[in-house]
Each structure stands twice: as C-alpha cells, then as structure tokens.
C-alpha cells in the first residue's frame, strides 16, 4: 500500500540518489560505527532511541509496579518504598525502586482483550486490527520516524529467542513496506547473512557490488519506479549492515559491563541493545518469555521480576553513564497483566482490566505514577487508558506528533487513532 508521510517524501529524494549511494556505502566495513564522529554528533543532536522490553505472556502488575500488600489479592510479596516518597513497588524490584526518578509508571491500563494473540497484536500496533489495513507495529513506525533511510546500521532489531509466544510477538512493517521490517533474531544473538562468506575476499565483495551497481544504473536509465529505487537502496545498505555485525558481539565488552548486565540471555541481549542504540539503531526490542503464570505465579515472578529488575537497572545505569539516557526511552510492555484473584494452582490468569506499564528515560517525567487501580486491583479507579494512549505518550516522549498521519492509498492514517491523547502527566 502507498504510505507517504505528510512532509517531503524522503523516498522520492532517495529514489534518484539510490543507485549512486551504493558506492558511498560500499566501503563502510572499514568504518568503526562505534567511533564514527558522524554518529556521535548525531546522538548529540538529540536523536531519539527506544529499547522495548517485551514481557511476553503477561507480567503481573501486582508483583511489579502495582503491589497490593495485605489485600486478599496481594500475594506473598511486600511493597517497598522507592526513592520517590509515596511511591511503592513490589519488593522484587529493589534496584528499580532506587532508580525511580527516571521512570513513570502507568497503573491504569484497561485494554479489554485477554487472549495472548489478539492482545499482543494490540500492544504491538497500538490499535485494533482492521481487515483491510495492515498496520505497522511500534518498531516499524519508529524505524521510519527515527531512522535514516540510508542508515548504515539496522533500524529495527527484534530479539525473540524463546519459542513461547513468538508467533504473537509480531513484527510487521504493514503498509510502511518491507524497508521497515525488523531484523528478527530468533535463533541466536547474531543476525543471519551479515557475515561475508569465506570464499570471497573483502575487496571482491566490494567490487562485485560496484559492478552490480554499474549494470543496474545502466538498466535504470530512463526508468523511474519506487520499487526499483528500493532494490538499490537495499543493496546500498548491505556493507554498512555487515559492518554492524560486531555490534552483536559482546565479547569485547569490559568484564565489568558484562557482569553489570548479568550472564542471562535477557541480560546479554539488553547489553547488545545498548550497543546498538549507541551506534544509532533507533529501535531495539528484547523479548523475555514466558510470563504466563497460570500456576505457581509467585515462583515464576520471583525469578523473572528479579531478572527484570536487574537488567532494567543495568540499562539505566549504563545509558546514564554514557549520556544516552536522555535520548533513550526504555519501555516495558506485555500483552496484558494478571488477575488479582489467585487461582487454585497459586497462579494468576490473563487480565486486561487494570494493569501497568513503565516508561523510563527520554522525554519522561521520572518519579511519577499515573492512574490507579482500586484497592484490590480489580478495576481502574483513576485515569483509565488504553493501548492508544500509551502509544501516543511514547510518540510524544520522542518528540513525534502522535497525530501525524500517513497517506495509505487515499486514506489518511494517523500514528494513533484520532481522538487519542498522550498522557501529559508523565511527559517531561
């Protein structure tokens, strides 16, 4: 489908330049993207980045951001005070509690849908599906809005190495087109096809691409087409993306940093996310599964929340130390929360009526809580919001107008459904 932003089309500009761009991008393997002064200055200009921690299966709000100690629904864990007077979180999040000044908690999501597949779609695209339109997910929109069309690094990296819930943890560019598809890592921490085959030497790899460009430029004379331009844009990005392969390799990170994130897969992927963000990748999603604790909720959450607390805190500290936190938004999202009622298997079930998400860093008024659930956590008492409001808030925090629209065919499609408002109270 056609999707043009309302401003000057970046694509039409690139369309003309795409074939020539091949030569520019072709020698990028020599460039250390981490040390590139160009990229450093880009970040200084205030380019915004996002790390999404996707808690697949549905994390419990009661064992994280919205504890109900002493209530029948409260469970065994206590609430602890945070560095911000008056705000309490679960005792499973002591490190987070100390760093709350960077985070806003939203405790009043009512998203209606409580089955994994549909709810996960809702929380990925921020609105309900429509039969006639394939919406892009948050990552694809941000890849487009925050990335650069000729970027040398990927603009949407999606880790989902667990198998549970992967089918629901969608990643779709929808009407924005394949240019904004995620680099999707399901098997290992390094993407496929970034590595040159042994059989070809580096110079030949560069020069055969130049030969390709020459043949293609010859073909493209007198021919104009956006798909044709995109074909050459894709090849022009190959060498740059290959250069980014080392971003996925954490073996060179100082031991101190690796220990800070911890030896878990989630921790390692969060560290890779930081490396990617630092090199200019606008959107990285790290998925952690499987939070779906229908039985033994408290054991599951003891393990998973403790890890989340550790990894989030490592990210906050590390990004802050590097001066990146003010440019980087860390979001925790799930498809839904978990029931206040504890079932016979000591589990909590799917619950979309009153649950929580957190926003940390860029554009966020830290140390705040927005909205409230009732005393047992059964309903939203105050400040009810849905997926659309959370998305609008994310866009605003990143300096994007949530009402900006794409033209899809003849139809204007805004970033969030019309009438959706961002949650001003949590914005800086």
């Amino acid at each position: 489908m056609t999707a043009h932003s309302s401003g000057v089309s970046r694509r039409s500009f690139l369309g003309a330049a795409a074939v020539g761009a091949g030569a520019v991008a072709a020698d990028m393997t020599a460039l250390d993207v981490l040390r590139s002064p160009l990229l450093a200055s880009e970040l200084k200009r205030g380019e915004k980045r996002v790390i999404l921690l996707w808690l697949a299966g549905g994390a419990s709000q009661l064992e994280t951001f919205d504890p109900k100690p002493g209530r029948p629904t409260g469970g065994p864990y206590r609430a602890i005070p945070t560095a911000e007077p008056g705000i309490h979180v679960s005792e499973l999040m002591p490190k987070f509690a100390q760093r709350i000044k960077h985070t806003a908690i939203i405790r009043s999501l009512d998203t209606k849908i409580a089955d994994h597949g549909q709810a996960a779609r809702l929380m990925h695209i921020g609105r309900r599906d429509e039969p006639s339109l394939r919406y892009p997910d948050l990552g694809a929109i941000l890849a487009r809005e925050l990335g650069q069309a000729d970027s040398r690094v990927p603009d949407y990296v999606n880790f989902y190495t667990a198998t549970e819930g992967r089918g629901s943890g969608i990643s779709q560019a929808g009407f924005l087109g394949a240019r904004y598809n995620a680099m999707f890592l399901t098997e290992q921490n390094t993407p496929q096809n970034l590595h040159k085959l042994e059989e070809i030497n580096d110079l030949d790899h560069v020069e055969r691409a130049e030969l390709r460009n020459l043949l293609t430029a010859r073909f493209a004379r007198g021919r104009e087409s956006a798909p044709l331009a995109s074909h050459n844009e894709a090849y022009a990005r190959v060498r740059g993306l290959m250069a980014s392969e080392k971003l996925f390799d954490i073996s060179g990170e100082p031991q101190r940093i690796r220990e800070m994130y911890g030896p878990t897969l989630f921790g390692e992927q969060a560290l890779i996310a930081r490396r990617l963000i630092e090199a200019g990748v606008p959107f990285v999603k790290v998925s952690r599964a499987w939070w779906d604790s229908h039985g033994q909720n408290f054991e599951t959450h003891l393990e998973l929340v403790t890890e989340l607390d550790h990894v989030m805190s490592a990210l906050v500290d590390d990004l802050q130390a590097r001066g990146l936190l003010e440019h980087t938004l860390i979001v925790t999202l799930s498809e839904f929360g978990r029931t206040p009622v504890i079932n016979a298997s000591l589990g909590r079930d799917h619950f979309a009526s009153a649950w929580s998400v957190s926003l940390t860093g860029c554009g966020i008024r830290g140390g705040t809580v927005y909205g409230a659930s009732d005393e047992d956590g059964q309903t939203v008492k105050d400040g009810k919001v849905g997926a659309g409001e959370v998305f609008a808030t994310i866009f605003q925090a990143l300096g994007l107008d949530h009402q900006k629209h794409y033209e899809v065919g003849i139809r204007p499609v805004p970033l969030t459904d019309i009438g959706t408002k961002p949650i001003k109270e949590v914005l800086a």
Partner: protein
Amino acid sequence: MFPPVGLPLETVRMRCLLYLGCCALVALHSVRAAAGGELLSPDAPPEQAIDHYIDTRLQRVGVSPAPQADDANLLRRTMLDLVGRPPTALEAKAYLACQDSAKRLQTVERLMASPAFVRQQAAEFDAWLMEGTRGNIREYLAKAFRENRSWDRMFRELIVGEPDDPKQQGAIRFLAARAKDPDKLTNDTSVLFFGVNVSCAKCHDHPLVDDWKQDHYYGMLSFFSRTFDVGEFFGEREYGRVSFKTVEGESRDAKLMFLTGAVIDEPATPEPDDKAKKEEKKKIDELRKNKEVPPPPLYSRRAALIEAALHDSEQAFFAKAIVNHLFNRLFGRGLVMPVDQMHAESPPSHPELLAWLARDLQTHGYDLRRLIRGIVLSEAYARSSRWDSAAQRPAESLFAVALIRPLKPWQYGTQLKLAATDCQQYPAEMSAEEMDNRMQQLEAAGRALGASFELPGVDFQVGVDEALLLSNGEKIANDLLATGDGSLVGRLAQLSDARAVAEAAIWNVFARPPADDEVKALTDYRSQRADRIEAARRQMVWALLTSSECRFNY
C-alpha cells in the same frame, strides 16, 4: 450475531471529518469522467478497444507515447506474464532471428496454449485470492484454468462450492481460510470480486462515498452470516439475521443487500426455539465427527450473492473488478486506482474502456483468456518502459510508457534459477513436452527459492533481508554460483576469450544482446582478477543475477 466493534463516537466523527477534508481535495483535483458517449463497437477485439481508448486520451492531452519495446524486451515481458518465466538465451535468439511479421501473435498463442500458462495463471490467482491467509487453492485453480472455466463459474465454485463435485475439489479453501473471521470473509470477497473495500462502512456510513452506508456493509456480511463449518466442510443455516449499531446508537437489522443497494427477497425464516437449536447443534457435531458434508439449505444466501452479483449488469462490479485487476497485474496499474476503490469518487482513468471491456467480458461468457490475450496483444502493453524523450515523463495513468513491475516471488526464484543455468541445457531441438517437464522442475526449485522473497503489494519495497541473503547466503552461493556442468559459471569456464565470456554471461542472464559498455565492464572486471579467474566468473554472474534487470518485469 457479529456485534460491531465500537469505536468511540468521537473517534468516528473526527475520523470522518478528516477523511472528508481529504476527499474534498481529491474531488477537486479529479477530472470527472466524460459522461455518456457511445462505446466502440462490441465486435472489435479487446486489443483494438484498449488501444483505441488509450490512444484517444493520449491525443487529447497531446502526449506521444514511448515507442514499442524491442523484441527481446517484449518477449521477456510476455513470457513472464503468460508462463511465469523469462525466455532462455536460446529462445530469445530464435525469436530475434525470426523474420515472420506475425511472430508476436504466434508466440502469444503458443504460450497461451501451453501447460505453463495454466501454471502461471493458477499461481497468480492463488497469490491474489489467498493473500493474507494460510490457505492455498493452486490445484483447484490449475484445474479450472486448464479447462478454461469462466470467471463467473470460478466465482460460484469459490463462494458456494459443492464439495462432492471432484471438479471443485479444493475450491472450498477460499472460504475455509476465512471462515473464522466473517469480517475478513466479507471484506475480502468485496475487494477481490467487486473491487470495493467496504470495511470503512463497518463502524459508520462511508465518509467518502455517499451511497455506501453501514447497511451495505452489514448487507454484505449477511450473505455469509449463516455459514458454519463442520471441520473441512461448510453448511448454511436457514435462519439468522445480522443486527448492528449505527453511529447514533440505534440498533438495526441488516437487510440482505448487495453493493448496488439491491435488497434480495428471501423466504421469511423464523428463529427456531431453544430445543430446535439444541438438536441442530447435535446434528452439526455429528457431521463434524463423521466428516460429512452438511446438506445444502433450501435457501442459500451465498448462492444469492452470486445471483445478485451476476445480475448487476448496470454497475457491473463483478466484471469491472476483474478487468481492473488484470489491467493492474499486466500493466502495473489498474484503470481505477487503488484497485479496491471502484466507486463514484474514484473515477477510472479511461471510463469507456473499462465499460467496454466489462461488457465484452459479459458478452463473451467471462472468458479470462480472451481478456488476457487482448491486453497482451495491445500496443499499449508492448510499449518500452524507458522514457528517453526530452518531454516530461507522462503520468502513469496515461499508459504512455510501460511500468516496471517487481517479479512475484516464484517468478524471481525461477528467473534466478534459469539465469544461473547454462542455456544449452535447453537446446532448440528439445521437444516441447520435454522442455515443459524440465521447466516444471525449474519452477519447483524457483518456487522454493522464491519463498525467501516477499509478495509485492502496491508500492512494494525490496527489503534489506533480500539483499543480505543474496549477498552473503551460503545456500544461494552454492546454488546459483555453482561451478559444475550445466551451470552458467561452469559454461563460462569453458570459454577462453574474454569477450565471449562476457557476452555469454549477458545473454544467459538477461536473454538479450549485450551492449559494448557492459561487455567492457565485465571483461575489465575479469582481467583484473587473472590470479583468481574462477572467483571472478562467479562474481560476474553474481553481479548480473542481482542487478535490477533480473528483479523486475520491465
């Protein structure tokens, strides 16, 4: 039965306002179709009508179209469209050498009579009709195209279907793939068969098209609302109504209404009582258990949809939609764009042509071969895709210059496989039957390779995954750049003359005569690698295979 998903009222109203604002702009800029006028004689062949109407408009706006494409280009385009693959170098050479002035017509007729034509149409229609589902109706479509079944018959078999009839085997998957989602079934049916996207009228009256109301959406939904599945088969109840909420909050019963607004009279059927419903459920469970086809209903709403659509001779949604679809597929652009917006506010670029072709299709028994043949034999189809003129490039809607179309995944897979195979594997003396067998194997491999590529939609973009895969994928290198007998790289190794190597490579991959500058580029590339000549050959072939010339139907 299917409660409307409620958008907040405010959202709906604001969306409409925004929409209307945008539409006003569209309306201002769009030139209204010239009203009335006699159509060209119905006796003319479709290709003549296509050129008549397109040329008339070109003359009116004072644009000279691009010249006809050269023979090699046109052969490649025609073969990709009709049989799903480009020519081999030998086929292209033979075509170029042929002096017969009727060679184009003969080639089109030969291609359309070949089994490969059936496979390609089945692949195209399957990709189109089943996109976004997990189903596949390729086998059914191949049967239908082999017999040249009419489009109205295929429509009936896909929507109503008689699973006991072996001729219709597999058709039911069109429904099966959508049965769980009545909204999708309704909208897909409207988009695919009538060129109308009604989903906008689900939550509110269509803001763009005056005469499309929620009544139309739920009217269309009603055709499917009584359908239920029993495993792999479908039954239809004889009762049940759809009700919906209007934007004002009023609850309304949907009428059985086609897009034209025609309301279908049907036998009144009271809602059964609870006991009867329980019995019905028991019966359905049994059918499911025994894997039996449910008995047909006394009155079928799905069959009523077929009748309504085929009786709509005035607006001819059904005929116009397939004309527009095939135009879009074969020209890279429909007469109405977007193709799912065939309504008063989205006028055709050539209204008389659309009307003429729709009438022609109706009076010739919905024969798709006639339509495809007409398009492919038109001069408009045969134009060059290159605009070399100093004059400004004309608007796409004039069909003055051919558009570049990304290959479908199976076409690209087959193109790559064929280009990487030494063309002498398919010598001219090979029998047509043997050639077709070999091509079927190649297509199967091409289809497997094509699974890595995306099906192009409107404004398709090539993703970087594809470029990375073709640049660094080990299987790709082993497969397409193999050095053994029968491969292109292997054949190049047998040639010693640098120029001969370059020319053979270009012929084999592009199926056209080489030009001096590209021959020079390839020979230079090779001569710089005298110490690693085999690597050089593989790299040259890689550069040819990955160039845009291979990726597109131009």
